[in-house]
């Protein structure tokens, strides 16, 4: 058997796990590991400019591929800088393995240089964490880390490695385990057949059913099955922010996103439904609005891989724990075999009602003739120029909601955003993580002048590794979502939401060797954007001036029912 040092085992284990890229930043505690990286060429290391970006790159890789991404950061500040990225992945159930350096084991607890208790600091935002106590455990710990990150409800796993576990001169027999067996970790592998049968009976008897699906469809690779089930039942489908792309966005049965900034029709459908089939979604507060008024006439069927998500906020009438795809497959078989199909007359009336709701709002917005562009127009143009086929990696704020509302995602894993934690600064590194792994795809970072500045140093990483993403910066010179809330709830007192002293983004991009474009007029937008995407080998930063007074609508009235919404600055349901 081959003898390897702890440092070599770390990299070899990653190789044996099929990892091609790791994103990271070196430091004292990791010097042995970085030396091992230098002496091989199978696992490529990408040097970021800030550890947070490394975690977002690994996270976005996972969102786009379904496989765990890997970040490597040193002890102390390296580890704490990674915490925001770990929390981002945790909130959205994204598989990720974060390897953190640690001071030598005999120094732990002595407040050594660059020491921090990473296991402690990260504990509330990881699925699990390991602290390496013996170098020979490294292969099995890394195997377990990937297994835990990628199975059940996915999530980030931290592996903390004290420096003396990686000493180059101490060698151990290396063998990467083929299987993992853990007595305390056995995710549910199939749904309860009796519950599935009950759910299908309820759906077939429903008069106003709806499917509400979330990120579980995306990570659970269940979009094909979801589409088949929805069509066989002829029911409307709404997606959460995390679930966009899980059902074709241009399909007639799709009623849009639901929740705080959901479509009018999606929220009306939810409010009036008699049966709600929730799959891979967790009844988040941004979805339910006031829980006491949520879906007053509906029976709730809740399918989720995580038993703790069921009946956490909204009590499920029929809970089903298990993987979405297998459960939906079983549902499809039962629908096919049913003696009587869905009530055709009820369906006709339900769809008639839904079409009326669609006609009332339908995502309309006013345009400023001859004035500043509306952000919605930019997203619609992005959708047009990229044929609705781009990876859209979003930052956080108004632009994120506009992208979710106006870019029509027909495929899963194309919409990459920080939904749960709402991490500004996510967009650019996320786009980089996707582009490095899908070099031929269109990859757009939809951002604002606020968010982009939270990780703008990564323009340097893009230069070093030739990562030609397209940055679509909706520049409204203000923290738009904060400003919107201040308009609506604080009599327009814009406390700290105005962005003074913005850089010249065009020159900034150029200083990193990229292309910068400034667009002020809608008339120039299509030409400029087409040109930007035609430059397939260049990063293009599009600084697009948009109306700073625009709000995101619909917007639910706080603590109201699903149907209680503002539809514009003056119109309420």
């Amino acid at each position, binding site marked *: 058997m081959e003898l390897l040092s702890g440092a070599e085992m770390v990299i070899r284990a990653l190789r044996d796990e099929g990892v091609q890229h790791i994103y990271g930043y070196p430091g004292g505690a990791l010097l042995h590991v970085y030396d091992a990286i230098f002496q091989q060429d199978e696992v490529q290391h990408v040097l970021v400019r800030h550890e947070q970006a490394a975690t977002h790159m690994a996270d976005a890789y996972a969102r786009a591929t379904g496989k765990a991404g890997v970040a490597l950061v040193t002890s102390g500040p390296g580890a704490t800088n990674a915490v925001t990225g770990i929390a981002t992945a945790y909130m959205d159930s994204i598989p990720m393995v974060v390897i953190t350096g640690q001071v030598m084991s005999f120094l732990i607890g002595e407040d050594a240089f660059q020491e921090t208790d990473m*296991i*402690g600091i990260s*504990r*509330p935002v990881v*699925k*699990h*964490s390991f*602290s390496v*106590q013996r170098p020979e455990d490294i292969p099995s710990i890394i195997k377990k880390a990937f297994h*835990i990150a990628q199975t059940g409800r996915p999530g980030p796993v931290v592996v903390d490695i004290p420096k003396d576990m990686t000493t180059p001169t101490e060698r151990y027999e290396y063998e990467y385990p083929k299987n993992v067996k*853990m*007595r*305390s*970790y056995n995710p549910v592998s199939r749904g309860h057949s009796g519950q599935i049968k009950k759910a299908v009976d309820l759906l077939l008897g429903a008069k106003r059913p709806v499917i509400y699906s979330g990120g579980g469809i995306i990570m659970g690779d269940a979009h094909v099955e979801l589409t088949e089930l929805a069509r066989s039942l002829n029911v409307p489908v709404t997606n959460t922010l995390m679930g966009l792309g899980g059902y074709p966005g241009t399909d007639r049965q799709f009623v849009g996103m639901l929740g705080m900034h959901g479509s009018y029709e999606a929220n009306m459908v939810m409010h009036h439904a008699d049966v709600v089939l929730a799959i891979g979604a967790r009844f988040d507060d941004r979805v339910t609005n006031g829980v006491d008024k949520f879906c007053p006439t509906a029976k709730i069927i809740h399918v989720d891989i*995580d*038993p*703790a998500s069921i*009946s*956490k906020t909204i*009590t499920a009438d029929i809970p089903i724990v298990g993987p979405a795809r297998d459960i939906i497959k079983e549902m499809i078989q039962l629908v096919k075999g049913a003696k009587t199909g869905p009530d055709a007359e009820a369906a006709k009336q339900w769809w008639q009602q839904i079409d009326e709701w669609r006609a009332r709002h339908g995502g309309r917005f006013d345009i400023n003739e001859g004035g500043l562009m509306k952000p919605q127009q930019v997203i619609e143009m992005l959708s047009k120029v990229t044929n609705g086929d781009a990876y859209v990696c979003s930052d956080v704020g108004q632009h994120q909601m506009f992208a979710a509302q106006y870019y029509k995602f027909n495929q899963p894993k194309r919409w990459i955003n920080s939904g749960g934690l709402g991490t500004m600064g996510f967009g650019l590194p996320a786009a980089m993580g996707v582009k490095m792994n899908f070099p031929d795809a269109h990859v757009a970072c939809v951002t604002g002048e606020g968010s982009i500045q939270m990780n703008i140093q990564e323009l340097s990483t893009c230069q070093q590794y030739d990562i030609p993403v397209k940055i679509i910066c909706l520049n409204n010179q203000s923290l738009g979502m904060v400003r919107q809330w201040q308009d609506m709830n604080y009599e327009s007192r814009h406390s700290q939401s105005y962005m003074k002293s913005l850089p010249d983004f065009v020159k900034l991009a150029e200083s990193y060797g990229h292309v910068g474009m400034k667009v002020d007029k809608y008339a120039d937008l299509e030409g400029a954007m087409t040109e930007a995407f035609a430059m397939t080998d260049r990063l293009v930063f599009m600084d697009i001036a948009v109306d700073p007074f625009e709000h995101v609508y619909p917007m639910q009235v706080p603590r109201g029912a699903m149907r209680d919404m503002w539809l514009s600055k003056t119109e309420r349901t």
Partner: protein
Amino acid sequence: MRHIISVLLENEPGALSRVVGLFSQRNFNIETLTVAATDDGTLSRMTVTTLGSDKVVEQITKQLNKLIDVVKVVDLTEGEHIERELMMIKLKANSSAAREEIKRTADIFRGQVIDATPNTFTVQLVGSSDKLDAFINALSGASLLEVVRSGVSGIARGEKVLSL
């Protein structure tokens, strides 16, 4: 309602902090917590008593089960069970009347005087938390110097066993 939750967890460094952290992170209440290794050196047994509605306790057991280090979770209060807590209580006992009174009360509760000085008695008492509370109340005439309680340990009645 008060629940007694028994947890078998891996006897690994950090496992306890994951459980305790979960309670504070999720805003769950802990009344008492005890933990020690079992006959199987790889396993620890923890008993947590908590106050909460059925919905909250259901979340607690589900969230505990999600922790990778947790092997098994049982809500003992769902079935017949036995709970015991140990208390050591130090009392001022500097007159013969006080000494008599404390001894008599301890006898009634089947407590034992386990240490004595000319001025103090230390009494040991084992029982349910209610019994321990009652003993403290019964001694309200005497002056308490110090109270140490172990927290609740619990086990199911009959042949039900919480093991691997």
